[in-house]
C-alpha cells in the first residue's frame, strides 16, 4: 500500500516507547512449575509482535520514543536482534525513526550498531528533523546525550513545517510523572506552541493521552517488566489522513501480563473465605487477560479471625492459595509472589497493659523497638546471613532490616503480630 498523506491518502503510524529490550522480568519468584520459558525473552517477543502487527497492517512508520534498551544491559546481541527486526520492517516497507532515552543514552549497543537504511536515529546534540516527503510527514526530535537530562529540550525543537504532518518525538517526564525520574521536563504548553500535529512521547510506562488537541500521547511500555507495571501494555496506532489524526488506538503487544491482586480480609473471614476470595480475584484477572500468561502478585491483608491459624501454618496456607490459583488459571496464571500480610485482630495495646507472658512479650518487643542497643544484639545474630547476601538483595525492603535499624523496628512489629498469634492455642473449629 502506498498512501500519501499529502494526496489525501492515509498513513498508518505506530508509536511505541520504552521497549527495554532484553531487560529481565523483576520480582518473579521461582517455585515448582514456574513457566520460565514463557517469561524469559518477553520483551523480545513483544517487539516481534509489534513488528508482525506493523507488517500485517502495512504500517508506513514506526516511532520509538526512547529507552529501546535498558541502560545496564550491554549484550550486543540485543542490538543485533533489534537490527534483525528492523530488517524485517525494511522488507515490508516500514520506516523507523527513534531516539535515545535516559536508559539507552549511554548504551554501548546503540553507539556501534549499524542500522538498516530504513531506520533513522534523531540526533542527541540538538533537535533534528526527519522528513518523509512521500508520506507527507516530518518527525522532529532529540535524543538524550547522557542519562540525566534535566533541561527542557523540547523548547529547542524546530517549528512545524507547513504542509506536512508534524510529529514531535520526545522522551520526557512532561510535567512530572509519579514514579519516573523528572528527565527532560517540559509542559504541555511548550509542546502545543510548536504547532505539531502529534507528540509521540516516551519515558512514562503507563499509557496516557495527555492531550487531544494536539495529540500528546504516552503509549506506555511495550511489555510490563514487574508487578509495578500491571495491565495491558503495547503501542499506539494512529491513522493520519488529510494532515490530521483520524484514528487513535492502543494495541496490546505484551506477551506476559502483570497483575497485582489484593485480597482485603474481613474480620470474620475464615481460611475458606480467603481462599474463595482468592479464587474470585484469579477468575476476574484471567477473564481480562486475552489469553496471555498472567504473572501475578497476590497480597492478602486485613485482620481476619483466621489470622492466628494462618500464622501457625503459613506454609500450608500459602500452598492452599497457590493450589487455588493453579486450579483457576492452570498454565495461564502464575502466582509469582504471594504475600500474607494479615494482622492480628487482637487489641495489642490493650493486651500490653495486662499481666502474664503475652503482655510481658509485648512489652519486651516494645522495649526492643525503643532500644537500639538491644536491637544491635539481634542484628549480630543475623550478621552471618548478612555477609552472605549480595548488597542489592539487602537493599530490598524485606531485607533492609539487616542494615537499616528503622527497618528492623518495622520487622519487630511484624514479629509481634506473628508471635502473639502463634502463642495462642488453637481456637478449635472455626
Amino acid at each position, binding site marked *: 500500500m502506498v498512501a500519501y498523506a499529502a494526496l489525501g491518502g492515509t498513513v498508518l503510524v505506530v508509536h511505541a516507547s520504552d521497549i527495554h529490550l532484553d531487560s529481565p522480568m523483576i520480582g518473579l519468584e521461582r517455585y515448582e512449575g514456574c513457566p520460565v520459558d514463557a517469561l524469559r525473552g518477553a520483551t523480545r517477543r513483544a517487539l516481534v509482535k509489534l513488528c508482525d502487527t506493523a507488517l500485517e497492517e502495512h504500517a508506513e512508520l514506526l516511532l520509538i520514543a526512547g529507552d529501546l534498551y535498558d541502560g545496564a544491559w550491554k549484550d550486543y546481541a540485543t542490538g543485533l536482534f533489534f537490527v534483525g527486526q528492523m530488517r524485517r520492517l525494511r522488507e515490508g516497507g516500514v520506516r523507523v525513526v527513534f531516539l535515545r532515552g535516559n536508559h539507552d543514552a549511554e548504551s554501548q549497543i546503540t553507539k556501534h550498531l549499524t542500522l538498516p537504511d530504513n531506520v533513522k536515529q534523531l540526533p542527541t546534540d540538538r533537535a533534528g528533523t526527519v522528513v518523509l516527503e512521500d508520506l507527507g510527514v516530518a518527525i522532529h526530535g532529540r535524543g538524550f546525550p547522557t542519562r540525566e537530562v534535566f533541561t527542557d529540550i523540547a523548547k529547542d525543537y524546530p517549528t512545524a513545517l507547513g504542509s506536512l504532518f508534524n510529529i514531535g518525538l520526545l522522551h520526557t517526564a512532561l510535567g512530572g510523572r509519579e514514579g519516573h525520574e523528572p528527565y527532560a521536563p517540559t509542559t504541555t504548553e511548550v509542546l502545543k506552541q510548536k504547532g505539531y500535529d502529534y507528540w509521540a512521547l516516551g519515558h512514562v510506562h503507563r499509557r496516557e493521552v495527555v492531550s487531544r488537541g494536539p495529540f500528546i500521547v504516552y503509549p506506555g511500555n511495550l511489555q510490563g517488566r514487574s508487578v509495578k507495571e500491571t495491565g495491558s501494555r503495547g503501542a499506539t496506532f494512529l491513522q493520519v489522513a488529510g494532515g490530521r489524526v483520524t484514528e487513535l488506538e492502543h494495541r496490546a503487544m505484551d506477551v506476559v501480563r502483570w497483575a497485582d491482586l489484593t485480597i482485603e480480609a474481613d474480620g470474620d473471614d475464615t481460611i475458606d473465605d480467603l481462599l474463595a476470595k482468592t479464587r474470585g480475584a484469579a477468575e476476574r484477572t484471567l477473564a481480562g487477560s486475552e489469553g496471555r500468561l498472567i504473572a501475578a502478585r497476590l497480597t492478602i491483608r486485613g485482620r481476619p479471625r483466621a489470622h492466628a491459624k494462618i500464622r501457625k501454618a503459613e506454609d500450608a496456607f500459602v500452598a492452599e492459595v497457590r493450589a487455588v490459583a493453579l486450579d483457576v488459571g492452570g498454565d495461564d496464571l502464575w502466582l509469582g509472589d504471594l504475600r500474607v500480610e494479615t494482622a492480628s485482630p487482637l487489641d495489642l495495646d490493650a493486651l500490653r497493659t495486662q499481666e502474664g507472658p503475652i503482655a510481658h512479650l509485648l512489652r519486651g518487643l516494645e522495649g526492643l523497638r525503643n532500644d537500639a542497643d538491644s536491637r544491635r544484639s539481634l542484628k549480630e545474630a543475623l550478621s552471618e546471613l548478612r555477609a552472605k547476601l549480595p548488597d542489592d538483595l539487602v537493599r530490598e525492603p524485606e531485607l533492609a532490616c539487616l542494615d537499616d535499624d528503622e527497618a528492623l523496628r518495622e520487622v*519487630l512489629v511484624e514479629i509481634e503480630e506473628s508471635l502473639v498469634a502463634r502463642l495462642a492455642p488453637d481456637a478449635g473449629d472455626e
Partner: protein
Amino acid sequence: MRLLELQLLAYGPFEGQVIELSRERGVVDVVFGGNEAGKSTSLRALEALFFGMEQTTADAHRHPYGDLRVGGKIEAADGSVLELVRRKARKASLRDASDAVVDEAVMKRLLSGVDRELFRALWGLDHVRLRDGARAIFAGKGGVGETLFEAGLAGAGASRLAQTLQEEAESIWSPRATTRPLAEALRSLAENRRLARRDGTTFEGYKEQVDGIEGAKREKETLEIELRTLDEERRRLDRALRVLRPLRERAALVLERASLGEVPILPIDSTRERQAASAALSESAATLAEIDAKLGALATREVALGPARTLELDPADAIDALSAARGSVRTHRDKADALRVEKAQLAAAIDGGGDDLSDERARRLITAVKRAATARAALVDATAALREAEATRAVAARRVEAASDAPTAPLEQARLEALRAIERREAGRAAKNRARLARSRAEAAFMSLGLFEGTLDELAARRAPAEEEVSEDSRRVERCEEEIRLAERELDRARTKLEDLDREERALLAEGDVPTEADLVSMRAHRDAAIAAAFEAPSERRAALASVAAADACGDRLRRESSRVSRFAIVLAEREAVEQARSQTSRRVDAARLALGAALSTAAARFTSMGVRALEPSSMRDWLRRRAAIVSDATSAAADEAAADGIEESERVARERLARALDASPGATLDALLERTDAAISRAASAARERDRAKEALSDAELAIARLSSVVASRTVDEDAAARASARELSDAGLATTLDEEATLGVVDDRRRARTARAALARIDAELALAKEAEHRLESIVARLEASLGTHGGEDDLLLRAERLGFELRRARERNDAARAIDGERGDLVRRRDDAIATQAKARATLDEHVSRAGVSAVSALEEAERRSERARDLALRIAEVESTLHAAGDGASLEALELEVGRVDEEAVLREREELEERREDVTRRRDEAFHREVASRMGLDRFEESNAADHAARAEIVRARARSLAARYVRLRLSSLVLEREMETYRRAFQDPLLSRASELFATLTRGTFEALVVRLDDKDRPELACVRSGREIGVEGLSDGTRDQLYLALRLATIERHAKHADPLPLVLDDVLVHFDDERSGTALELFAEIARTVQVLLFTHHERVAEIARDRLGARAHVVALDR
C-alpha cells in the same frame, strides 16, 4: 470484669434459661450438668457472648441461625453492670437489652483486648490443657523461664514454639550448611549472574568477529590469486616436461627421412603382388609339362580297348528288361503245380455245398432260431421257480404254526430293579464304611477337643461364633501385642540411646564445665550490674572488673569451645527428645495393653453362650476349626449310615418281586434268582426270534409266488412268438421248419464254405493266366536281343537262352564304359593346359608393370626399390604420430611455438623448477586454508551474537533472586522471632521467678497435701536454673514426678500466675472445665479450697459434669460454693 449472669436465650437446647452466678468474692461458681445436660453448650455460650458465635455452630439444632441468642450481665472493673446480648450475625452481633447495636469495642475493653484463643490460653483450663501444660513443663526439663511462661499460657507450648521457630529458620538457612534452600538460591543467583556476564556480547567482540571475517576473506582472495598464478606456471612446466622428449624424437626422424632422398612410394602390397606374380609364372610352366605327359598316356589306353560294338538297345536297359522277364517266368513256373492241385480240391468242395445262402439271410435265420430256443428255456426256468416258491411257502407256513409266543416284560422289569439293587449294594457298603470311619474320627477328635463339657451331639447342636469374628479378634490381639512389642523395642532403643548420650555427656563434661549462652547472658548481666554499681560506688570497681573479666572469659570460652558447646547442646536436645519419645512410647505400651485386655474380653465373650471356656483368640480360632471338623465328621457319618440302610431295604424289595415274577421261592438269594431270570429271558428271546424269521420266510415266499406267476405268463407269450418267427425264417431259407437250432446252424455253415471255395478257384485261374503272359513276354525280349546280337539259341529252353544273352550284354557294356572314361580325362587335361597358359601371361604383365612403376630396369631390382619405399613410408608415419603427441601434450600449441618455448631447456632443470613450484604452492594453499578457517571461526563467533544466552541467564537470575529474597526475608523473621521469644522467656523468669515461685510453692504444698514441701530453683548440669520439688528435704526434678503430681505442679504454677495477674490488672473470669477429673476426692477438695481462695480476686467458674465434684464443693466449701445445676 465479672460475669453475673449467663442468659441462654435461644442457644443449643436451651431457651430462656438464665444461669445466675455469685456476686460475692471468694465464692466459686460450680456449674454442674450431667451427660446431655448442656454443660459444654453453656461453655460455648459463654465464649459466644464474649467473642461472637462461630460461623458454623453445632448449637443451632433447635433454634435456626438467625434466632440464636446468648445474653449476659457483666460487671466492669469500675462496678458498672452492662446487660448485653449476642446474636448470630457477621456484623453488629452485639446488642444491648433493647436490641440496640453495641460497639464491639465495648466488649473488647471488657475483655482487655484478648480474643477467643487468648482467653482460653490465659483464663481457661480444662483437664486436657492441664495435662498438656504438665507435659510442657516436663518437655522443658523444668527450665524455670519456660515453665513460668507455659504456666501463663495454657497449652500454648511456648518453649516448643521457640524451638519450632529455630528449626524452621534452620531449614531455610544455616551458616554452615550448604544444602539449605537459601544457600542454593544464592548459589544459583551468583551462577546465573556469572553466566549472564560470561555470555554477554559487546560491540568490540562483534567488531572483532566481523573484522576477522573481512581480513580472512581478503587474505584468502589474495592467496587464491597467487595460487592461480602458480597453477599456471605448474601447467607450463608440466607441458614442457610432456613435449621435451617427443620434440627430440621428431627431429631424429626428420633427419633420417632426408637421408633417404627421392624415393618413389610404392603401394603397400607391391612386394606381395610381385612375389605372387613370380610364383605364378613358375607354377604354370610346370603344369603345362605335366598335362602333356598325361595326354600321351590316354591315347595309349584308348588304343588298347579295341573297336566299339553297336547295339539296338542300350546294354544296361536290355539287361534290366531281360532279367525282370526271366524272374517273372521263373516264379510262375514254381507255383503252377500247387495251383493246379488246389483247383481240383476246390472243385470238389463246391460240388457238396448246395445252394448259395446270403450272409444276411443266414444271420436272420440264426437269430430267429436262437430266440425261439432262448424263450423256450426261459419259460421252463420260470415255471420251475414258481414251483419251488410254492414249496417254500408251505414249509414257512408250517414253521410259523410251530413257534410259541410267551410274555417276558414283568420278568425284565423285576430283573432291572434287582440289578439296580445290586449296583447300589457296593455304594451301601462304602457308605457304611465311611460312616464308621467318620464317626470314630469325630469321637476321637471330640475326646481331645477339650474346653467343652457336653456330648458330641450337643457340641454339634450349639451355634459357634463365626471364624471371621474370631480371626478378627485374633488379629486385634496380635496388633496389640505387636504394638506392645514394637513399643518395648523402642523403649529398649531409647534406653540404649540415653545411656550413650549419658556417656557422651559425661565425656564432654569430663573436659570441664560446658559454658552456655545463658551463662554468658547471666555474666553479662552481672557485669552490667557491677559496672553500674561501680559508677555509683568506686569501691565496686574491682568487683566490676572481675565481672567484666568473667564475662569476657565466658565469651572467650564460648568461642573457643564452640564445637563442644554445640555438641553438648545437641546431646542435651537429643536426650530431651529421647526422653519425650520414651515417655510417649510408655504411654503407647499402656494403651496397647488396655486394648489387648479389651480385645481378649470381647473374644472370650463370644464363646460363653455355647458353654465353652475360651482361651486366647488365636487358640480359639484353631479350636473352632477343630470343632468344625468334628461336627462335619459327625454329620457326615449320620448321613452315610442313613444312606446304607436305604440301600439294604431296596435290595430286599427287589428280591421279593423277582421271586414272584419267576414263581420261585422267596428264600433264594437275589443272585440265584437273577441267574434263573436270565435263562428264562434268553429262552423266550430265542423263540421269539424263530417265529419272526418263519413269518418273514412265509411272507417272502408268497411275494415270490406272485411275482413268478406273472413271469411264467409273460414268458409263455414270448416263446410262442419266437417259435413262429423261427419257422418263418426256415421256410424262407428253404429248410424244413422242424429243424432245431443245432441243425439249422450246421446247414448254414455248409453253405458258407461252398461260397468261399468258388472265390478261391477264380483267383487260381487268374494266376495261371499271368504265368502264361510272362512266358510270352520273355520270349519276345530274347528274340529281339538275339536278333540284335546276331545269335540264335536254337531249341534251348527259353530261360537258358535268356541267361546267355545276359552274359553277352554285360561284356558289351564294360567296354563302352572304359572308352567314356578316357574321353572325360582328356577333356579335363585340355582345360587345365589352357588355364596354365593364361596364368603365365598375367604374371608376366604384372611384373612388367612393377618394373615400370619402380623405375628400374629389371624384375631383379624390384626388391631393393620396395625396401626403400617401405622405410620412407614408416618414417613419415612416425613423424606424424610424434607431431600428434606434441599437439596433445602441448595443449594445442604449434610446433614452432613449442620449440620456441622449450628451446634448449634441460629436463632435469625443469624437474627441479617444478619441485620448487610445488613447495611454494603447498605453502600458499595452507595459508589460504588457514584464512578460510579463520573466516569460519569468525562467522561462528558471529552466530553467538544471534543466539546469546545472556538475557536468559539474566532472566533466570532475576527469578532466583526473587526466591532468595523471599527465603532470606522469611529466615530473618523466623530467626528474630525465635531470638525474641527466648529472650522474653528469660526476662520473664528473671522478673517473676521469685514472687511466682514463692506463691506456687505454697499452692503446690497445699495441693499435694504436704507430700511436697516446697518448690525450689536449682542449677541444672548446664548451670541453667531449673525447677525442683522438695520432698522430705530432698530435691526432685520434674522428670522424677508422677503424672498426677506434675498435673498438680502445673495447676499450682498456673493458679499463682493468675493470682498475680489479678493483683495487677482487671482479671477476666477464670473458666475451669472439668479440671479435676484426674484428682481423687481428697485432692479435689484441696483444689476446690484453693479455687475459693483465688476467687477472692478472680471470678472462678468451675464447669463439671461430675456430680461428685459438686458434692465435694458443697461439703468442703459450704457457702463459698455456688452450685448451679443445669436443667434442660
